[in-house]
């Protein structure tokens, strides 16, 4: 699955069944109802907190979301947490039809803790489209507090070893050297993180102008 998860985030493993279109009972031929449902459950009946849901749209106009939560034993209820969220501003035209979307916890109508199943109800009222669905569905839990990325923790936990009396006066003080090396290392990390996009100058690659054919693969 493509999509960059943020630092310290991994999508929850889940099994999503393919979109099933709603059919009227007793209908002889398959009509195109414009409503489809995708059910998502966590493996082994587990439950998880849901922070964010990321997906790629494919011609779905409206999305509703219902969840089932772990609770007291007995018949589980479906609770609506998103009602008719508009993905395509104009369902007959292409706007928003293949875009990526994020649904966050603060947009939901109910709590997203200890969720056992998610039901995505897709609606596409326009008859112009042959298929509609959502793709690349990923569910993210709340982010853990990650340790500081710019300075590995073991560096700060180094205790200076027993100092043998240095017989050679010319050697520099190891403490000072190690602090300076640490500082330089942090600086290089910082510079590497702050890549500037501005051009420095032109580069001449030798012989690059002797070209006979352009490739188009």
């Amino acid at each position, binding site marked *: 699955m493509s999509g960059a998860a943020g630092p310290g985030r991994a999508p929850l493993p889940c099994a999503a069944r393919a979109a099933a279109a709603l059919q009227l009972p007793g209908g002889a031929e398959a009509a195109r109802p414009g409503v489809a449902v995708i059910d998502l459950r966590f493996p082994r009946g587990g439950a998880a907190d849901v922070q964010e849901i990321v997906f790629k749209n494919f011609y779905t106009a409206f999305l509703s979301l219902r969840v089932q939560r772990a609770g007291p034993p007995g018949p589980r209820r479906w609770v609506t947490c998103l009602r008719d969220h508009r993905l395509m501003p104009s369902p007959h035209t*292409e706007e928003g039809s293949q875009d*990526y979307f994020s649904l966050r916890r603060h947009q939901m109508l109910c709590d997203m803790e200890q969720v056992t199943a998610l039901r995505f109800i897709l609606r596409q009222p326009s008859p112009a489209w042959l298929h509609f669905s959502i793709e690349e569905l990923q569910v993210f839990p709340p982010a853990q507090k990650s340790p500081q990325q710019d300075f590995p923790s073991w560096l700060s936990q180094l205790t200076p070893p027993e100092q043998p009396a240095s017989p050679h006066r010319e050697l520099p003080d190891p403490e000072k050297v190690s602090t300076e090396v640490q500082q330089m290392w942090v600086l290089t990390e910082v510079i590497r993180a702050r890549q500037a996009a501005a051009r420095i100058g032109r580069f001449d*690659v030798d012989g*690059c*102008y002797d*070209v006979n054919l*352009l490739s*188009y693969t």
Partner: protein
Amino acid sequence: MLDPDSGLSLTIARIVQRLQGSSLHSQLERQARVSLHKPEIKLESLKEDIKDFLKTSGWEKKLQNAVYSELNVFPSPCHPAAPPEHMKEPLAYMRKAQGSWEKRILKSLNSMCTELSIPLAQKRPASEQKELLNKWNEMGTDEPDLSLFRPVYAPKDFLEVLMNLRNPNYENGEQPSFRNHLGLIQVPLKVKDIPELKEDFSELGLNTGQLGIDDSAQVPPEFFENEHVRVGQKVLAEQDSAAAQQYVRQGCPTALRADLWALILNISNQPEDILYYEQLKSNVIQYDLLVDSLIYKDVKLTASNDDYYFVFEDYLYQVLLCFSRDTSVLDHFTYSSATPPKSYIRGVIPFHGFSMYVAPLCFLYHEPSKLYQIFREMYVRFFFRLHSISSHPSGIVSLCLLFETLLQTHLPQLFYHLREIGAQPLRISFKWMVRAFSGYLATDQLLLLWDRILGYNSLEVLAVLAAAVFAFRAVNLMEVTSLAAAEAVLADLSTLKVMPLLQIFLFATVT
């Protein structure tokens, strides 16, 4: 979609990344350091004092202009999960169509190379280099043998590709239904209708003064023109890009146009820009590209034959030959649906009429390096959208659909009549829109039109003007009985006045 807070911080991060390390950044640092000598900078309030100094000395304005320019050029950041090709073009079938169109162009170019057995690029011998350097300012006097070269493609070839563009997920049934468009473009993109256009182009309304209407000989200049020129001079004195862009929506006075356009495009012709142009010039002298011959051929066929532009032939060579070697143009491919070919040469392959994008600018700028930068900035902001397949609202596909929809909605009889006689209106207006009307309108009218393109940062005004021209000549068009006759009615646009046509079509037509 991104929610507003994370979208804003992503935009800020992107702009900071682009401006960091640029010459503006180092100039600002240098100014801040120099300001430390000034008595009004105190140590206790160092940060605030330096910020105030930068504000009063005009440097903050330059930074604002640079940020505004970045916001205008680059699209808003995509969702973090979106791959980079999604930012170029969100719709998969359009990406595919653009890819196959590019393959066709490259195949044609490669076959031309092998037929004529000319390499794509080679180093010039020293004697030839010296000769070219001597003749740099008069390359138009050269008469190389170009009879074997042919343009890689013409606008009508591109129109055929756009006509065949189909969304595989769209119900393109054989039976005529509401889903099949009556025009040539069959892609269901969202286009604006006249009420939305009226709102977007509200400064073109009947109650607002316009250059192109209210500066005609019958109107005394005290009513509008004098005040407008005064405001323009003030905007130039303030050096504010955003204000200039707003001002230009009502037209630019001729005397101020060059400076105002440079302000909007954030071109300041610094020494390093001149140096960059000189580097490109030395590249031209040292290396010979096949694309150069295509450019020569295009200029000879189009601009040299035009009554208004033939005087600028030498300038056109100086700009276009350098443009074909400029690698900084490759930056725009991140937000364009096109991809450059796999080679070290930049990737914009000229088509028949490409030189007409540069020709009108020659009236405004006489220094080659400034002319070059203005053209390059106009290309990476606007003109590249006119010859690549994308779903952007200013892309050529949307413009064609906008033109056809406006015509069908507001001139249904004319549209039906033209369709019945086999003269689909887009076949006639496509070449106007692809060239941004350059070479079809009189130059002063063309520059008034391009004022509005810059002012609204969008090319939709081209489609509106095309529909307005059809509306203007509707009576004559209703009497024609063939495509050739329709073309003859619309062959000469040089007497048209652009602004009254736009105003009448948008604001004075009964809907």
